């Protein structure tokens, strides 16, 4: 098996490793780095559970090769909180009961942060449209929308 070398920063830590060039970014994150907060819910880039930030942009990490992230800064759900203090979006999800089984939650939080970055004061409809790339099967989205509204107000 041929391998290629990759360097990137994940949650502030520089990482360098040799990988099978077929490795997807989500596989690198989960299997090579052991950051299992990033989830896989489908195989057609539809569900958004694997959403992470690459150079500050929300990306479905199942839909790019790890090598495409060479030289980038990647943030996963594990990199959001500062010590015990949750990121305001994480806190808002908790305050508003925006999660149940927790499986879509990391991707949903990452997408929601990106959403507010581009539109700090979104309407309910804009929030709903902004999150349509992330599937949640538990909440009916209502409390997720509420959480994003709270985070936008914070």
């Amino acid at each position, binding site marked *: 098996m041929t391998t290629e070398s990759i360097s990137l920063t994940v949650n502030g830590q520089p990482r360098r490793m040799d990988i099978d060039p077929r490795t997807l970014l989500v596989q690198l994150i989960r299997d090579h780095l052991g950051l299992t907060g990033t989830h896989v819910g489908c195989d057609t880039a539809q569900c958004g559970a694997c959403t992470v930030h690459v150079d500050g942009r929300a990306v479905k990490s199942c839909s790019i090769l790890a090598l495409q992230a060479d030289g980038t800064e990647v943030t996963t759900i594990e990199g959001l909180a500062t010590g015990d203090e949750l990121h305001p979006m994480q806190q808002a999800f908790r305050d508003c009961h925006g999660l149940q089984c927790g499986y879509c939650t990391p991707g949903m939080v990452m997408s929601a942060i990106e959403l507010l970055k581009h539109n700090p004061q979104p309407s309910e409809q804009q929030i709903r449209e902004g999150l349509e790339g992330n599937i949640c099967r538990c*909440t009916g989205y209502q409390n997720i929308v509420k959480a994003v509204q709270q985070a936008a107000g914070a």
Partner: protein
Amino acid sequence: MHPEGIGAPVLRREDRRFLTGRGQYVSDIVLEGELHCAFVRSPHAHARIRGIDSTAALASPGVVAVYTGADMAADRVGPMVPLWQIPGVDGKVMNEPPRWALSRGTARHVGEAVALVVATTRHQALDGAEKVEVDWEPLPATVDVRDAAKEDAPQLHAEAPGNLCVRFQRGTKAPVDEAFARAAHKVSVEIINHRIICAALEPRAVIASASATRGLDGHAVTIWSATQVPHHIRKFVSEQLDLPENAVRVIAPDVGGGFGTKGKHYPEEIVLAWAARKLERPLKWVSTRSEAFVSDYHARDHATHAELALDADGKFLGLRVSTLAAVGAYVSTVGAAVPTTVYTAVLSGPYRIPAIFAEVRATFTNTVPTDAYRGAGRPEACFVLERLVEEAARQTGIDRIELRRRNFIPVGAMPYATPVGPTYDTGDFIRLFERALVLGDYAGFPARRAEAAKKGLIRGFGIAYFVESSGVAPSKYAGMFGARAGFFDSADIRVAADGSLLVMCGTHSHGQAHATTFPQVLASRIGVPLSMIELVEGDTGRVPYGTGTFGSRSMVIAGSAIYMAAEKILVKARKLAAHMLEAAEADIEHKVVNGLGEFRVAGTDRKVTWPEVSRAVTYAHNLPPGMEPVLHENAFFDPTNLTWSNGAQACEVEIDPATGVTRIISYIGVDDIGTVINPMVVDGQVHGAIAQGIGQAMFEEAVYDRESGQLYTGSFMDYTLPRADTLPSFISETDESQPCTHNPLGVKGCGESGTIGAPASITSAMRDALEPFGVTGLEMPFTPNKVWRAIQQAKTKAAA
């Protein structure tokens, strides 16, 4: 009131783990030396296996082993036995053709597992699976239940002539015939309740680890499975491997959504457990979404003819229901129970119907087996009834709201014995119905409809009422319907010297917030902060007895068990408090003051606190004669009746006739779930249930090619799930005026409500919207394409 106790909207204690990426789902677990598994699955709906050649696969890099059904047969691994053996008519039990975890000779649906490939990495296992050569002989297939029941249909099982699994009847025929004979009005409907796929966001996953010498924990095999029912899986696997039940340990860690579909036994669990014992290496399998679509159990899939008899005033006289239900290729765990006992038990719904007779023919089809998915039989029953009511309103000219009012079982008639068996203990249906109409501003609907019409948009108002058999289930009744298990649940409470409590329950939380709500019950009763309570679930190695989480049962059954065990704890604690205070036991009062428990000599200020009693009983320095040290009690709650959750669902839709696109303007759920333990969590459950009900009504449909038996809707690109921008915000309210009378908490199940009512309420709204335009016969799911076509057809017809 305890500030964190029953009724308080306490934030969830489990959230931090999930929000920081520290949840631990099966696929997140890595065992030392693990190997990876991939399954070879049937590409045919029905085919004989002439042979399987593993040579190329075994030569593939990293492949360690390839196993087939023949290997499992050689080791005498038992079949996949259903949990229920349903009794049919004439004393005949259901046909139960053997189902093998890996096919033996014939595959009967696309996606059936036929071989296992074990390799060093997941990629290598998948590559190896590509190289297993199966010599297939395709056979004629039948996937539509109406086709499968025909005389000339391809036959799936020699043991099941006519593809019949079971012919099941409920109610009494003669009074129904009599009711129809004297009826002023008779209405009938033909209904398809289409097949849907649960699609919990976490794909299923299994790890199995085995040691011939039995590891430190003494188990012959340990299984981690994304399941709702670890104790059921323990039972099945131990039976299949012919091991003592206690030699098998099943752990269900964090599970990413269950919805019933993960509450069943799956082939992968036994295949990995068996293969792990052969290889003495931990094995891991993680489903892809693509294989989930063809291997996770599907749901619904009924074809029903139903008739309702009414008198001249619109009072219901009799109901006759005949249903063809697809069980799929094999009888799954609860697959035969859902369309028979579960479905027919709620055919009276909220209505007084003096005579009911139902017949169900559960039928084999060359599809993935069907089984319980949120609602499970109750959405189908609600849909039949509500469709009949609306049809009766149309035919008799009695307003559909008024017709329901005339026929609701009044609160004064409770307890009410239905003619299909169950007795409802409580319920004030008319009260919740009227409340939903207020919240939905039904009075203002004509004005809104007219306003929308000015913009060329079509509005409809929908209403439905459901009664749900929740809190599953009294073991006695389950036994009568062929259950091969009891349905009680357990709570084991252990108190430490500092007064902190460890609670162990046989249920499992996969989104329902048990780690918050179960301790709320205990905190209220004992008088401790939530931070002093830990809950353990989902591990048969730590919780010996349990049934799992499904059928809206957890708070009803395990919550009641917690309450009962806490009572036993308090009896002993009171005895010790009397000893400590040198008072008579009869004079000791247990009180919770500001959330803290204390034992006081009545009428005095002499008291000992909960931590003081806990320390005294655990140190055991000075106990009354005969008292054993520590506070450790358990309780088992087996209900005497199901709980009868019920609710009204109202909604308003707006259709753009130019595109067929429907917008849900408002959606209201008013639920009677008895006592509410945590209103925030209940709201979340209600929202999710409504969303899944709307999913079936508006978007979701599992479509098989009627000839080839191929599943067209095999990915999230073809199978449409509700998304944030296709759902509205819901209004949900609970009514606590009718607590359950047969459990100590007064609770009724709350997990499924909207999933039961929404298909009926949305259909009601769509028909209300479109019937004035001549659209008839429009059925779920109401996709833009279907709605637009129906409108065009009606226009063409009107013009002709």
